[in-house]
């Protein structure tokens, strides 16, 4: 039985795809059979972040419409054995997805994988609702700014009402907060919302905190999920996030501004 996790946010550009790629990679590196699905039909990005855009032949829509088998569409990651990618279609739109089709794909993947990561499109419309509908857990990606927090709040409301678990009255979806692009020095200056304010408003448990980092942009453009860059603060923060997702207790780091950041980063590297 796979655990289905949706990575969602409401707002666009907060780091959903980056986080989905990094977390899926982290899970696979920890030995979990993982597949990451791009639900952003029409604005396909996950394959770029995963660095497999040149190997896309079939996609999610082809599978749903019966034009290709699931095994033909799944792309095996070149770097990690346990990781597969199911890309979205760039030439179609979200109407090409059906609830029954998505259910069938997830049911099939369920047998072979430990984790199914659904990379949700932005917004609260059909695409986003389909991505979250069958989920067991949700990772809500939030930036430390008011509009992102409000949109995350809206998504949390939908997770509690517009999902299969909610409609069937089963145990509610596990809700996890992932704060990305956190810059402690700008938080201290008051430019950004601080961690505690975000936690207080959203009132869900904190899964991870990813510092604003040059490593993230570099990783995106190189098509290598930032989890592979284990010297970087963001890479380490995603590794922590994955460990917490697997039930480990890991202390929070990168949330305070430290003048001796180079030194502590070195110690952080040694400890790993």
């Amino acid at each position: 039985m796979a655990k289905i996790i949706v990575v969602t946010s409401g707002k666009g550009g907060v780091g959903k795809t980056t986080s989905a790629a990094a977390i899926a990679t982290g899970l696979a590196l920890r030995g979990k059979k993982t597949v990451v699905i791009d639900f952003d039909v029409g604005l396909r990005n996950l394959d770029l972040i995963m660095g497999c855009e040149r190997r896309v032949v079939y996609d999610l829509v082809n599978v749903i419409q019966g034009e290709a088998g699931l095994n033909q569409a799944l792309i095996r990651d070149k770097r990690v054995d346990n990781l597969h990618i199911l890309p979205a279609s760039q030439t179609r739109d979200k109407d090409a997805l059906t609830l029954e089709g998505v259910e069938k794909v997830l049911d099939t993947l369920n047998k072979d994988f430990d984790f199914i990561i659904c990379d949700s499109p932005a917004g609260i419309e059909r695409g986003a609702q389909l991505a979250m509908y069958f989920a067991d857990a949700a990772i809500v990606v939030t930036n430390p700014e008011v509009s992102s927090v409000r949109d995350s709040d809206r998504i949390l409301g939908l997770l509690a009402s517009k999902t299969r678990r909610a409609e069937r009255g089963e145990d509610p979806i596990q809700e996890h907060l992932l704060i990305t692009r956190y810059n402690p020095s700008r938080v201290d200056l008051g430019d950004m919302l601080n961690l505690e304010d975000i936690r207080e408003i959203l009132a869900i448990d904190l899964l991870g905190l990813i510092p604003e980092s040059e490593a993230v942009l570099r990783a995106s453009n190189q098509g290598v999920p930032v989890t592979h860059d284990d010297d970087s603060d963001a890479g380490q923060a995603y590794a922590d996030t994955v460990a917490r997702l697997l039930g480990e207790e890991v202390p929070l780091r990168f949330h305070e501004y430290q003048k001796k950041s180079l030194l502590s980063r070195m110690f952080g590297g040694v400890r790993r």
Partner: protein
Amino acid sequence: MSLKVDRDSMAFTFKGGMLPMTVMELTSADPERIREQLAGKLSQSPAFFQHTPVVLNVEKLDEPHLALERICAVCRAHKLLPVAVRGGPDPVKQSAWALGLGWFPPQDASRPRPLESVAGDGDADSADSAESVELSEPSVEAVAPDALPGTTAGGRIYRGTVRSGQQVTAPEGDLVVVGAVNAGAEVLAAGSVHVYGALRGRALAGIHGDALAGIFCRELHAELLSVAGNYKRLEDIDPRLLGTTVQVRLIDDQLGITSLA
């Protein structure tokens, strides 16, 4: 299974809605007197009379029969659109239906008054209050045995965070929220609204016109506060009160916000 429904095959969906509605409280049943007053108002504020839907409240009239058809005609002649009648004895109800109007039960009997009216702080309302307490007691007893866990008589207790885009309503009594009401969320109650947490969204108490209803919250950051249709926006709230524990009540048709700390 909202996602499975083919929207194209449905002709309509039923939705609950709260619309602002002008209530015309009649103190005279004489169509001529109504006409005179309407003519005066029309010249003062013509913008108001744009086929505005109104509910005719006849609770204050003590007459078994009303010239409802003539009253409606007078209203229409002044570009007011009667859509329903509230209160009145059975013949009034029947003639409202015959005219194609809706009928609402009178305000006082339909639901228990909030607790504040029991306290009756010795002002002019206290005689009224005593009366409404008597009215409310039988209905409290009638509701209580069947009440679901977590509900109060005609009211509602909501545990958890009310999130942006969500609306929680207590259409008949008080609403108690054990948690925060976030920005972009809306909580409404026929009676009072109590928020045991931060109130960052909109709170509307007394949505059926109960001027004795109030809003109570642990931490005030509300986008909008309204009691019986009288409202204040965040901008209008004294910044010194923001973040504090307050009660909001209607005093002389003005929203008064006072600290409870």
